[in-house]
């Protein structure tokens, strides 16, 4: 009934993104599942002036901001967890290149929930009373900020709480572990806010580490938290979250996490990084060569690889995927 939606990464970026859009990452936290390769392709195609909606910073935002492609960002957390500050984003914020509007992690999730619900506002019992409410990077002279998290009166008790503005990003590139060619997706590991984001965004592109047959989805429909009916396109890209982790599929590449973040600390380092790791490959094969085939295999044999076991029987080979992809393009 439904049609295959497999699309090449380059074509997906070409077709669904343009300069100045509200672009959302479908990330599971700073070192986890994120479609980082989509950000690389945004840079390859020279996209700029992005308004980034990132529940949390990841190496994707770190890279995009470090490359001066982000004018505005909204975030709950702007670091890299154990890997410290995100140097690319930090440099962009400190220089004024990127205006970073702060929220908490629950706030970002609640704002996506509100966007998905199409509510005019979302009740806020957090972020109120702190400088998250009082300070706005998007309206720096409005202090205490009146439009960022305004007050609303609870009609039951008469007391005041806050109101978050809902988020409806133009495009979300959501990283998933497994997708079928129709656009049904399984996430392994925390969803973080990918469920809400997939409903809040105007257009959803899945970036999947592996493509499986739809029979997999019929066996595990409760795992399919993103159904095909809300998906525009499916991009197959193994190790799409590298150097971050994708539970069940591969571990964090500790070495490259540090290397990348160090590079992004300077303009020159960023330029070098882009030369080597953004424009330095032509296709999936070249990308896997960059990671290193041995390292990729080692990362794939991590402590969570058993999580993938029930699904391996349905994973399609690169050849099968290529055949389907060319069918769509035709």
């Amino acid at each position, binding site marked *: 009934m439904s049609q295959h939606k497999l699309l090449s990464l380059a074509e997906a970026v070409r077709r669904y993104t343009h300069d100045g859009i509200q672009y959302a990452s479908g990330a599971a936290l700073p070192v986890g599942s994120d479609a980082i390769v989509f950000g690389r392709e945004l840079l390859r195609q020279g996209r700029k002036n992005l308004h980034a909606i990132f529940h949390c910073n990841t190496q994707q935002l770190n890279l995009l901001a470090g490359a001066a492609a982000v004018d505005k960002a909204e975030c709950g957390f702007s670091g890299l967890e154990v890997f410290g500050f995100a140097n690319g984003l930090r440099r962009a914020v400190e220089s004024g290149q990127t205006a970073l509007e702060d929220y908490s992690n629950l706030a970002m999730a609640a704002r996506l929930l509100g966007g998905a619900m199409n509510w005019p506002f979302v009740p806020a*019992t957090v972020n109120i009373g702190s400088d998250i409410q009082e300070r706005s990077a998007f309206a*720096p002279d409005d202090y205490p900020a009146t439009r960022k998290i305004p007050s609303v009166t609870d009609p039951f008790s008469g007391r005041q709480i806050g109101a978050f503005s809902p988020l409806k990003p133009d495009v979300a590139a959501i990283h998933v572990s497994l997708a079928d060619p129709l656009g049904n997706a399984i996430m392994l590991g925390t969803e973080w806010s990918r469920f809400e984001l997939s409903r809040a965004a105007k257009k959803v592109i899945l970036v999947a580490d592996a493509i499986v047959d739809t029979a997999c989805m019929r066996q595990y429909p409760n795992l399919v938290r993103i159904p095909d009916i809300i998906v525009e396109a499916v991009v197959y890209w193994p190790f799409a979250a590298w150097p971050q982790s994708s539970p069940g599929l591969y571990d964090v590449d500790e070495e490259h996490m540090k290397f990348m973040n160090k590079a992004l600390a300077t303009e020159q380092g960023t330029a070098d990084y882009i030369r080597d790791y953004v424009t330095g490959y032509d296709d999936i094969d070249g990308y896997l060569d960059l990671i290193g085939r041995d390292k990729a295999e080692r990362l794939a044999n991590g402590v969570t690889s058993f999580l993938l076991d029930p699904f391996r029987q349905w994973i399609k080979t690169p050849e099968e995927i290529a055949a389907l992809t060319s069918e769509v393009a035709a």
Partner: protein
Amino acid sequence: MSANATQNLPYTRQEMMAIATGRELRDGELAIFGVGLSMLAGYFAQAHHAPNIRAMTEGGVYGATPVGGLPWGIECNRISANATSFTNAIDALGFLVASGRCDVGIIGAAQVDKFGNVNTTGIWDGEIGDSYRLPKTRLTGAGGANDIACGAGRVVIMVTHEPKRFADKVSYISSPGYLDGGNARERYGFVGKGPSAIITTLGILRPDPLSKEFFLDAYYAFSSVEEILAHTGWDLKVSPNVRVVPEPTPEELATLRRVDETGALRKS
């Protein structure tokens, strides 16, 4: 330098801080840990004296204990490997934390003030002023700590004890403590009761029941009241009953080091 003070001790200051933090957690509690020190302190408590602690992370990772070393993040494979449930941010930070359901949270701070307000957003030269200007140093933002600070039953703040980190007033309140003190939290209806302790590399601060100003409650075997006062950027009051924190027992230390198998707490 106080770093020298621990040279002859069989544990580091970071380990003392982690153990002191872990002692704040009680068996059976629903507890949320952040990444790094906070997680080590939490899982130390679980492994040592609170076996039925119900540990969670803000990613909605439940039933897990880390394997293979300190997790790189609250969602990474080291903590995902043996979880019994993965949900999401709305669930963890909303349904379980902001709701008031979570008993205790452990958060870190780049800067903390005398009312337990936490700054993790940025460092400015002096006050920000009426217009929001660029920070000299951008930090990590609030993350889930603001949600924990608003909602968790009580909050334990872990912070390295340095003068620049202990300000009379933080430049930016990323996560609310007692705001300007007293009953200020009631203005916002926060369901959480606020920070119950600031546990540092030098000692333990607790809030006055009425004013909510933090005072020095205890110091470590290797620190002193004088050293702590010298490293605190406000006029820190000292409890008349100020006490020495018991040193780590051999069991505590052995347990902590099993949890911290990659030795993150011994590196500093």
